[in-house]
């Protein structure tokens, strides 16, 4: 019955499919190497650690991708129907055990290697004496609060939230500690200083995302989430919302300025004056 399906038609399809797999493999790997669309330059040690782990993962998965796709291309061309019988075999236990252990070691090793960067961000708190900034997400804007000279955040109360009156986070001005709090619509931090961010949300879940820091954290209503980063390159970086929060999700954007210490202090004074 072999003549029914085989012949040059089969060979042509086999060759075409094998060729598409080769083109797919090489063009994908080429675009990954060319890095036309890629992460922006990292601006913190954490971001660099993430990038290193990304690269390790890329090498391993790239290798598997290359081998698997080309092996697939090879077998379909090599073993196209040319009449005759297939090789009768139910498998090979030794090979099976070999590649199972190899992938286990590779993938789980990679997973363990990744935990260091995660631990540095999440398992360890901010350095003592780190500057604090409270980040509040709200449909569809970010607000930032600096504790002012007293180093204390004042009380807030949801019932006081009022954008028109210039109180987007519901600051309770009866509290003495709240008097000198500075609330801003863009964020600035001094360069090379550890900053502890305190994330909150007023209405629904948002996500604070800064590409250059490789930093993303949801701001969840009812939760207060503390994380930290240290930006090491001055500049202005875009902040976007990464968790669907409603019809203005895509325009919930602001900027993070990383400034030299003196410029940062000037910026803060200017904001306080407004």
């Amino acid at each position, binding site marked *: *019955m072999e003549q029914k*399906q085989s012949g040059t*038609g*089969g060979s042509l*399809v086999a060759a075409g*499919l094998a060729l598409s797999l080769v083109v797919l493999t090489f063009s*994908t790997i080429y675009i990954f190497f060319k890095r036309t*669309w890629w*992460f*922006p330059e990292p601006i913190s040690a954490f971001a660099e*650690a993430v990038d290193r*782990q990304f690269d390790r*993962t890329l090498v391993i*998965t790239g290798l*598997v*991708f290359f081998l698997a796709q080309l092996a*697939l291309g090879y*077998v*379909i061309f090599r*073993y*196209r*129907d040319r009449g005759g*019988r*297939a*090789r*009768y*075999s139910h*498998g090979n*236990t030794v*090979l*099976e055990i070999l590649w*199972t252990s190899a992938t*286990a070691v590779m993938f789980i090793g*990679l*997973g363990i290697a*990744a*935990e260091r960067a995660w631990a540095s961000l999440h*398992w360890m708190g901010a350095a003592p004496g780190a500057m604090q900034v409270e980040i509040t997400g709200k*449909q569809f804007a970010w607000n930032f609060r600096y504790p002012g000279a007293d180093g204390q955040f004042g009380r807030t109360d949801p019932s006081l939230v*009022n954008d028109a009156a210039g109180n987007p986070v519901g600051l309770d001005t009866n509290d003495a500690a709240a008097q000198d709090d500075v609330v801003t619509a863009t964020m600035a931090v001094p360069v090379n200083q550890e900053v502890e961010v305190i994330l909150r949300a007023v*209405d*629904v*879940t948002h*996500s604070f995302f800064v*590409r250059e820091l*490789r930093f993303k954290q949801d701001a*969840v*209503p*009812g*939760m207060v*989430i503390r994380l930290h980063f240290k930006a090491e390159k001055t500049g202005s970086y*875009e902040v976007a*919302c*990464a*968790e*669907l929060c409603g*019809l203005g*999700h*895509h*325009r919930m954007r602001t900027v993070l300025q990383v400034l030299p210490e003196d410029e940062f202090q000037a910026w803060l004074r200017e904001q306080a004056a407004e």
Partner: protein
Amino acid sequence: MAEAHAVAHEAPKGFIRKYIFSLDHKVIGIQYILLALAAVFVGMFLSLLMRLHLVWPNAKLPFFDVMTPEQYLALMTMHGTIMVFFVLTTAPQSGFGNYFLPIQIGAADMAFPTLNMLSFWFTFVSFAVMMAAFFVVGGAPISGWTAYPPLSAVGEIAGPGLGWGQSLWVISIAIFCGASLMGALNFITTTLDLRTKGMSLMRMPLTCWAWFVTAILALLGFAVLLAAGILLLLDRHAGTSFFVPGGLVITEKLIPHKGGSPLLWQHLFWFFGHPEVYIAILPGMGITSHILSTFARKPIFGYRAMVYAIFAIALLGLSVWGHHMFTSGMSPYSAFAFSLLTMSIGVPSAIKTFNWIGTLWGGQIRFTTPMLFAIGFVSLFVSGGLSGIFLAQPAVDLPLHDTYFVVGHFHLIMGVAAIFGMFGATYYWFSKMFGRQMSEFLGKLHFWPTFIGVYCIFMPMHFIGLAGHERRYPDTTAVQYLAALQPVHLFMTIAAIVTIAAQFIFVFNFFWSLWRGKKAEVNPWEATTLEWTVPSPPPHDNFAGRYPAVYRGPYEYGVPGAAKDFTPQHVPDGAGGAGSH
């Protein structure tokens, strides 16, 4: 087995009992497949509108005039929901599974035919309720297929579509859960109880294993989603606060809820949601194995390992839901556990891939249309699976989570790979189901633009994700770094237009072959399993009362010394020229 025969019921007479409220698993399977076919075209049309809007935001589109952001988000929510629930969960499992599980194990029907009928009609009602969300005040919901509260819980105050639309969404999902639970029970019981003589578990085709394990996952997953859905409904309409914390201020109004947790929903949802991706893909894996073995003319490489791998994937799949929540604010220590468990799923997945290549190795491959889609499945599974290795590492996930990198990843692995499984199944089994062959020429014509097209749509998504392109953005003008990525959007949209156009070749082939196709033989592919022993289409009770006995495993191709290169399961040793082994 006596029980196997007990479920046989009289062939129905009237049109309604035969084709509408049918108890016959074959009719019900086809009903599911037609429902999924309708759903996939709705879902695809919505995605086309989205892709057009992303590239030409000011163009006038059919039904929309110029699309607003909330309309985009409504399309996105409905697209994802329709595709995941009404396409990927229905066709591969309830559609093809219903039709072929009983036949492949030598049974007359499913264990509970009435439950089977009910589960289809629940699904149908669920679909109707979901579609109704388009037409109510405020339109369809905008909270995504994941429906995270508080956005999904507090009503239209949080945005358009979150009133009636969101309520219908939740109700539809709850009904769907009920349908899936009934289906799951039926599949599990059928597999365990109705196997014919000689059909031991380890002689079942891999399709049956996949359907069986998928049913177990569905039973555990949909039970939890049902509970979550009911709680969400109570939060929305009964004033409870399971998911809504106190002190929320939405558009300057204080919300009366107190004491709930948004993360609770995420845990419940993803406890279902991750197994769901395996519910979508496992049947495709089974079908791919089945097709690869048939057309390589070789036994499956490592049948046992394949079975164990399915179980390993399912077991691990139930314990990794937290990998969707690395940025959610959940405990960073549990992230460590979720991460390592997720990385471990790479191992059984790799076993499957190796064994598929091993099956092809040394074969005599026949490049039929189903075979092309099965090979495409393997390629897509590799590509889509590997990007998961990045997302599974919490630190690496931070820049990638909720970007197009994720959209690319899940479309390749759960979207397109599963769809390739369905295409493979359709081309493979069409003749059995409808008695006529599909056109091979049109099938191949369909395969090429589809295979190349899906890679062109979804591979570039990974790159714009690396560059930080958030997902669920109707518009890319507010965030400035997105401007540089617009040419990639254009490329993907053109690829989507071509790929979607190519799907009409499939539809044409489907309906044309239904009436005009070449009359099918009983066993046109020279295959070994029981569905190829019955007429095309099979009679009402499948085997006309004469239940086959099974003498060997499912994939005895190329047995040395046998007269033919395939030795069917039902042929006794020594008879019909079958060799022994």
